[in-house]
């Protein structure tokens, strides 16, 4: 049983492949997963005025406006000022929000600052606010997978905007397989991997068409990365490191190589892929 719905601004697909369970059991389980994603969206969407994250950002803007009219920054560092502003609104934050913010902070440290949810200040917005979208997706998929397991569902996958958690076997009783999309042609697959219960996440840039592909200059020194797929212990781990690795450009795949339990497949603008040393083991 498989279904796709548009939630959190992206298509989310759930397939439950429990051959021996009644259909109603599978349908209920899938409904619970979709409802969960809706509730995450209500809390974390920066596009919903009433969401908890929007309220936090409003407070941050107010705090920043306040310090600005006080006559400029009085805090010794920008980080401390932001932390202070966050602490002021901390009271009343949900457990989920605290967990996600702590995860974001942890990821920032682990990736030498390449992962950062703080947005730059803009005109009329002295504090750019925070947007944890880069981590919420993986976090939500992981939690949704746990909801299914608690119900006794063992064979399933959940995919949201290209990030994937698989469990058990597919409807044919085989290992789930995942295709890595060709960044230059969304209808093509360039690699097939078997995650075997591990998480998969892809981070990439947008609006890259075939015009970027330059087969005449494959030796170009700056090999810009257009997409990086990371396989990690679970989808949350894969997602947060994929976001950071993409921000690192060509160095991203090398960063993943240094981590234990992670593999990556990075594709540059010339269509040349660079992979971690044990990546190919996932293709068998």
């Amino acid at each position: 049983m498989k279904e796709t719905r548009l939630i959190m601004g992206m298509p989310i697909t759930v397939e439950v492949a429990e051959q021996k369970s009644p259909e109603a059991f599978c349908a209920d389980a899938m409904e619970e997963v979709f409802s969960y994603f809706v509730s995450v969206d209500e809390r974390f969407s920066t596009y919903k005025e009433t969401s908890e994250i929007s309220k936090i950002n409003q407070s941050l803007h107010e705090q920043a406006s306040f310090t600005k009219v006080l006559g400029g920054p009085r805090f010794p560092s920008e980080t401390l000022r932001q932390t202070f502003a966050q602490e002021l609104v901390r009271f009343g934050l949900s457990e989920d929000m605290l967990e996600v913010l702590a995860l974001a902070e942890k990821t920032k440290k682990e990736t030498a600052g390449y992962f950062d949810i703080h947005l730059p200040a803009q005109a009329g917005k002295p504090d750019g606010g925070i947007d944890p979208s880069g981590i919420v997706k993986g976090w939500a998929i992981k939690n949704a997978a746990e909801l299914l397991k608690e119900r006794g569902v063992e064979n399933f996958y959940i995919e949201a905007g290209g990030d994937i958690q698989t469990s058990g076997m597919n409807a044919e009783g085989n290992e789930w397989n995942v295709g890595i999309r060709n960044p230059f042609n969304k209808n093509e697959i360039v690699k097939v991997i078997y995650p075997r219960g591990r998480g998969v996440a892809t981070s990439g840039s947008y609006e890259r068409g075939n015009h970027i592909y330059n087969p005449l200059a494959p030796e170009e020194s700056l090999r810009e990365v257009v997409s990086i797929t990371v396989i990690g212990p679970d989808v949350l781990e894969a997602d947060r490191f994929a976001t950071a690795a993409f921000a690192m450009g060509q160095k991203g795949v090398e960063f993943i190589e240094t981590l234990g339990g992670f593999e990556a497949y990075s594709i540059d603008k010339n269509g040349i892929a660079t992979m971690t040393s044990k990546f190919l083991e996932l293709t068998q």
Partner: protein
Amino acid sequence: MKKFLIGGIIVVLLGGYALWAASRTSQPTTVTGNQTGSVSATTTPGTGVGIGDTSKPGDVTPAQYKDGAYTGKVGSAAPYGNVQVQVTVASGKITKIDLLQKPQGPGETNEIAARSFPILVQEAITTQNSHVNIVSGATQNVEGFNTSLSSALQQAQI
């Protein structure tokens, strides 16, 4: 770990307050003089671009547009920057949507210097024909685009 975290929060909170209080007392006149300003600054919601705008392109009834070019406000495509569109209307119909601002991967601006790691295996990507259960690829959040498009269309309304 939790105790440590709570301890850290308290320290930061107290430290931050102390600094703030110090700044207050050192220049009391400035504080008083500008507090009114801060109030008015905080009571203008909707100035944050892309945040809190729940409108969708569907909120606008089609075929009610004036001819011209309309620029939408900036929508967020975090963490890769912003998205902003310009809509061109001719004979009451949308004829063109241009991306004035498109999300940029930091990889575009960060030139990575010399490699210090062992050279990893590389290959030219090739299309695979095998059937797969699931596809992993970078997808764009549609909301930033929708926000900008929506505000451009609202301006175009008669």
